[in-house]
């Protein structure tokens, strides 16, 4: 039972982190019909900026956190302005490949900076311990995981208020519904695109912090963890924010359970699944769900005309 609770807790925390990236994916997809493969790269770039300020420059952690998150948002805005604005109206797939190009650029520069040694991101509560953990009934909860979980909930609540109440939130919903009609209503669609990317960049860098914070450290392979938000989005449906959150939780929990129960599963089925299977499981689930429901669990079905 302890193992089960431990796996659940870790899975939920992972799912919360994935949901931050996943919401960014969905926001961009809804607003511009662009599947941005650059999101994982933005997440690790955010973590890189935080680490550069907090560790290399020795600034206070909170300041570097705010600066890192803000800069990632701005970077994301710049990417949209320079690379994606000329591509409005192009086929979805070409734009997706374009974002892969951006991903390669960002990560090459970042990898060069990271080098071979893992980098730490600093400690928000030096006397309390970002690296520490809490034990309840034998279940170890890292502070980082707890923070990740509650941050994700907070962000989701804030975003939903933003979409319901604020002028820009409503404009964003209108844009995602119909770009031209929104333009006719006097909404500055270009500004909305920029805002969407800014928010997505902020979410990505937050996720980047939780993925690489504490003992996880930032390495050249950290982006693969952020990339696992992609199956989450696909499971939930590319254009559904609740879907993205549920998809992320499914992915996180699967990863948690498989990591803890792989040995028992292997003894039941009788052959080895191989090392690192828990990292593969999200993709297998995505594979299976797409075969049954091609538009994801909560996605709107595409209507096609000849």
């Amino acid at each position, binding site marked *: 039972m302890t193992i089960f609770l431990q796996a659940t807790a870790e899975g939920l925390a992972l799912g919360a982190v994935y949901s931050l990236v996943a919401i960014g994916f969905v926001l961009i997809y809804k607003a511009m019909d662009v599947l941005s493969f650059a999101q994982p790269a933005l997440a690790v770039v955010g973590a890189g900026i935080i680490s550069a300020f907090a560790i290399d420059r020795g600034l206070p952690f909170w300041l570097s956190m705010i600066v890192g998150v803000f800069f990632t948002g701005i970077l994301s805005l710049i990417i949209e302005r320079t690379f994606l604005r000329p*591509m409005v109206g192009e086929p979805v797939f070409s734009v997706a490949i374009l974002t892969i190009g951006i991903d390669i650029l960002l990560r090459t520069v970042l990898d060069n900076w990271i080098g071979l040694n893992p980098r730490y991101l600093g400690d928000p509560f030096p006397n309390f311990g970002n690296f520490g953990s809490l034990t309840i009934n034998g279940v170890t909860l890292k502070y980082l995981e707890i923070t990740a979980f509650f941050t994700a909930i907070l962000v989701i609540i804030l975003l939903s208020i933003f979409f319901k109440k604020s002028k820009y939130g409503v404009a964003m919903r209108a844009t995602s519904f119909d770009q031209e009609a929104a333009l006719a209503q006097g909404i500055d669609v270009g500004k909305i695109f920029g805002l969407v990317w800014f928010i997505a960049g902020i979410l990505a860098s937050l996720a980047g912090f939780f993925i690489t914070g504490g003992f996880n450290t930032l390495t050249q392979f950290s982006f693969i963890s952020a990339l696992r938000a992609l199956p989450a989005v696909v499971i939930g449906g590319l254009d559904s924010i609740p879907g993205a959150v549920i998809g992320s939780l499914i992915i996180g929990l699967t990863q948690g359970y498989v990591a803890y129960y792989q040995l028992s599963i292997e003894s039941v089925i009788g052959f080895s699944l191989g*090392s690192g299977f828990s990292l593969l499981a999200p993709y297998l689930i995505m594979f299976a769900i797409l075969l049954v429901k091609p538009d994801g669990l909560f996605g709107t079905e595409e209507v096609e005309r000849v």
Partner: protein
Amino acid sequence: MRGRPNLFVDYKKESAILSNNTQKFWFTLMIIFSLGLVFVASDYWILLLTTAFLIAVAAWGLNIVSGFAGQISLAHGVFVGIGTYTSAVLGGVATSYVVGFELDMIIWLPLSGIFSALVGLMVAPVAVRLKGLNLGLVTLALVFIGSHLFSNFKTFTGGAGLGRKTAKVVLLGFNFENGLNIGSYFLEKNQLLYILALIVCILCGLGVKNLTRSRTGRAFSAIRDRDIAAEAIGINLFKFKSSAFALSSFYAGIAGSLLFTVSGGVEPGQFNLLYSITFVAIVIIGGVGTVLGPLFGALFFSLLPGTIQTVLHSLENFGQGLSLSTGQIERVIFGLFIIIFLIFEPRGLWGIWFRLRNYFKAWPFSY
């Protein structure tokens, strides 16, 4: 008839692979030039060109499924990997930890293509069910499944981090390691591999060109343009989407079986996501849905390291100021080119070549 190269009196002549004398002339000239390079070019460039030809074959494969039939595949590198490991198992040498049967190339070359095609056929039903972006995402899952399997089937692949030796290149009893004497000139293994790659490349290229003028090729284009409409005019979607995947994987398998014999060893980590995306990028940089495009793209991609080396060498001071290594510069340029081509020239290098050709066709008039 003389002096009217675009006048065709029958359909067969118009749809011939090389439809006029200019094309025949340039085709022959390019072959002679490429063969002549064996005796002139340095070992380094021979290696790069050999890889370029083989990567072109793989890129043609991706172009069949994505460019002609419009089915997005991000998992092309996995099929290349399947070809590599089929050939390594059939033609490689057994050691204490990997299997190998040391068969002749005449057996393993086609078999690695065929085996890869069979795996492609297994994936094909997925493509029939999904389309567009969702298909791309499922094939993304295939990349991760593929690299997981590659690193865990240790008896075939040697396992992650270790890898294994590739197939021995022995064609009809003749071992490429021994080299070959032509008159007074001695051809080493690399040069022989270059000629082999060139031949495979020419054959596969002609195959693609032939495909575009066949019934299957036309069906592929119809599916790409609008699959529902294609189905309505009587094209069997299941059959043609499957055959597109099978053909594409066949090309990938053939390319993969030879690609790593150049370096002699292969490690499962090589078939990662970036490797598969490289092929997508090559096809885009070269020109989607064209016959020559992937060849241009592959040459561009494979000769990039050599070009950068040469440029850095001639600008020594510039190279020292830069903190990026050669490999990283290569990746930055590669990433930039993907972006630049998609924004400014979606038809790729082929598009540039096409406009140049048309400009000089009518020169000095503008049209």
